[in-house]
């Protein structure tokens, strides 16, 4: 038989639960919403799950040319809003959480002030999130990588953009690296610059570099995407060479798909593009099943590769409707979903590949 005291206790617990539910509902109702569209019909093998066009508030409510996006282990969506020098963070349902960044110059011209302080960005291009939820951002025009915690608080930066990295990089004046994309795997960070891959520890110590400018296997011409497979294979979107290259963590070439299409200005050497696999691969991500998703900007599609580089399928078509793409640039993956920076449509799209 329940005593009066027990009854009141039970009532208090029930009321507390109701209060929590009420507060949760109020939070969901009152918290800011991003400019999002849910769902949609599959288009050319791409099923739109969520379309995000911006935070929907503040002085810049919409994105302008987002270049990359990622889904963190904390289920958050991070969008690199490149022209606005910020990272916008959303829930998996598209609810805007917060943003961080702002414009800062780390390597000013002589006579100009360095305005950079921890967290400010200068044309960010790439992003990745590690298992702890820390966020790594390719701070392209500051020639450095910046690391933030899951709440967007600045943690550290590397390399020092005013010092030479290893045996040299593509940063302005030969210091730092003009980093276009980053990938985190275990204790290492892999960064693509204009013609090579530079490897650091997650603390920022230089480990190694590999690659050189060129069209030969293992060389690069403006790589713009990098990802690491579960077995440690480093996948690089060698953009201007129109190919994907895979390396061991130490930099040994494992395989390549696509071909270089460079033309020498002197010799005018011609190459046959008729059997090209890619138009302009710019972003790359590894799905949970080990397959590789490549964003091809010029073909307006996502190309799915096996873990050995065989083409498994092509998804997507040009356009501005949900599920369509317009010069897409970057890609991230989680589960069976991909998040694509749909650059020229000024949006990010969470998509499912309908195989």
């Amino acid at each position, binding site marked *: 038989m329940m005593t009066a005291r027990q009854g009141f206790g039970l009532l208090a617990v029930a009321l507390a639960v109701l209060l929590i539910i009420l507060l949760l509902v109020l939070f969901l109702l009152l918290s800011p919403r991003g400019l999002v569209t849910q769902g949609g019909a599959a288009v050319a093998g791409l099923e739109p799950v969520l379309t995000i066009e911006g935070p929907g508030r503040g002085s810049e409510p919409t994105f302008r040319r987002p270049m990359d996006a990622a889904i963190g282990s904390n289920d958050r969506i991070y969008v690199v809003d490149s022209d606005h020098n910020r990272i916008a963070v959303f829930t998996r349902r598209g609810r805007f959480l917060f943003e961080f960044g702002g414009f800062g110059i780390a*390597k*000013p011209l002589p006579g*100009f002030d360095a305005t950079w302080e921890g967290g400010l960005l200068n044309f960010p291009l790439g992003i990745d999130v590690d298992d702890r939820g820390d966020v790594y951002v390719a701070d392209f025009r500051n020639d450095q990588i910046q690391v933030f915690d899951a709440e967007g608080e600045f943690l550290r930066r590397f390399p020092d953009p005013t010092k030479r990295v290893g045996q040299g990089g593509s940063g302005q004046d030969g210091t730092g690296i003009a980093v276009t994309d980053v990938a985190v795997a275990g204790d290492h960070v892999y960064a693509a610059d204009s013609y090579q891959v530079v490897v650091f520890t997650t603390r920022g110590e230089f480990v190694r570099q590999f690659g050189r*400018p060129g069209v030969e296997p293992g060389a690069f011409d403006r790589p713009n995407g990098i990802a690491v497979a579960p077995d440690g294979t480093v996948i690089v979107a060698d953009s201007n060479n129109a190919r994907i290259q895979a390396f061991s963590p130490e930099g040994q070439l494992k395989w390549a798909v696509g071909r270089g299409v460079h*033309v020498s*200005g002197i010799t005018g050497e011609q190459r046959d593009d*008729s059997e090209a696999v890619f138009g302009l691969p710019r972003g790359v991500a590894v799905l949970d099943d080990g397959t590789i998703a490549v964003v091809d900007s010029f073909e307006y599609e996502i190309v799915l590769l096996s873990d050995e580089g065989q083409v498994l399928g092509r998804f997507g078509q040009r356009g501005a409707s949900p599920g369509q793409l317009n010069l897409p640039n970057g890609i991230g993956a989680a589960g069976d979903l991909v998040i694509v920076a749909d650059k020229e449509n000024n949006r990010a799209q969470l998509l499912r590949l309908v195989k």
Partner: protein
Amino acid sequence: MGRPLIIGIIIAAALMFAGATSAFAYDELVYEDLDAESGLDHLEPGRDCIDCHGIVDPEDPEQKTRSGPHGGYSSSTTKCGACHSVHAAPAYFMLLPGPTIKSVCESCHDGTGGNGVYGVIKARTGEEPLSAHRIETTNIIPGGDPETGGPRAQPFSGPGGTLTCTDCHSPHGIEGRMVEPFLGDRYRSDRYISSDSSEVATEYATASSRLLRRAPTGADTSVTVYGTGWCATCHQGRANGSGTHNHPVQQDDHFYYNRLPVLTSLDSTETTLGPLGQSNLGYRMPEITVNGETTRTPLQQESPGPLCQQCHEDVRDATQEFKITEPDGRPDDDDPEGPSTDNPRFQVFPHESNAQRLLIVPPGTSAAYTDALCLNCHHWEE
């Protein structure tokens, strides 16, 4: 049903068919009514699409195109679709993926696909550049009037008739319509040496046409080489023989820049009198490496006449020898901790500059030009 009604129906049907005939006879390969918004209204109506787009004959130098994004169109490729959409283009203008030519070009040419782009200077200063060929902003050409040397207005291809990228560059890369590679140009970034500094990537020679048109901005004259003549197709008031007096910029005039103090050798600081453009203290054209062979006298430098680019170029110190010992942006191997030999710094000429009038001045100089610019050629000891 009376006969008049039947006749009426027949006549009406005949008229309908007659009206429909002209509609069905419309040749979809001929455009008639493209309006200004399409960006094609400057073309003559009634021409076939093929008149412009043609069928590329790879054996015809006038039609030969490059591979890569800008060219390589054939019956087995789908390269046109990289930029143009036949149906359902997201933007109306020329069926491009972006609203303007500039926006489309900058989708790739934003620094991630190559150098020499707009926006680099602001990224290092926080301020707009001091001078630029301003894109989709103006239709005024400084020094464009051949009679007075003053400004001249001209309709270009950008929105509202403003200057845009395709007025100077040919995005379709048809070789017969582009200038020859500019052999007098200097090194460009990150295309020369491996990251371990062990070898020169000779395949990445510096010379390139940069997809520059032989007849930029719709000029009547065709120029095959990027240099003074090319600039003067637009800046007509700056050329020799125009209606005003100019610093001579071409060799076919009475003035020759052939008695200037130049270095006696690459390793010397001694000078002798000689023509500009070889080992001149202020502007020594860099060596060009082609397939492993280095040459010091590129074709354009054989001329004693100076080039516009000898005064108008990226910001650098004209009082110091312009000697490139390493590829841009990299320290000297013998002094890895020393200053970079990247000079000039940004390599965005002629797009934009952090000096006035796109002139070569020492970095940070606020004046439009200083005496150093003159002394660059007119040595004070002479």
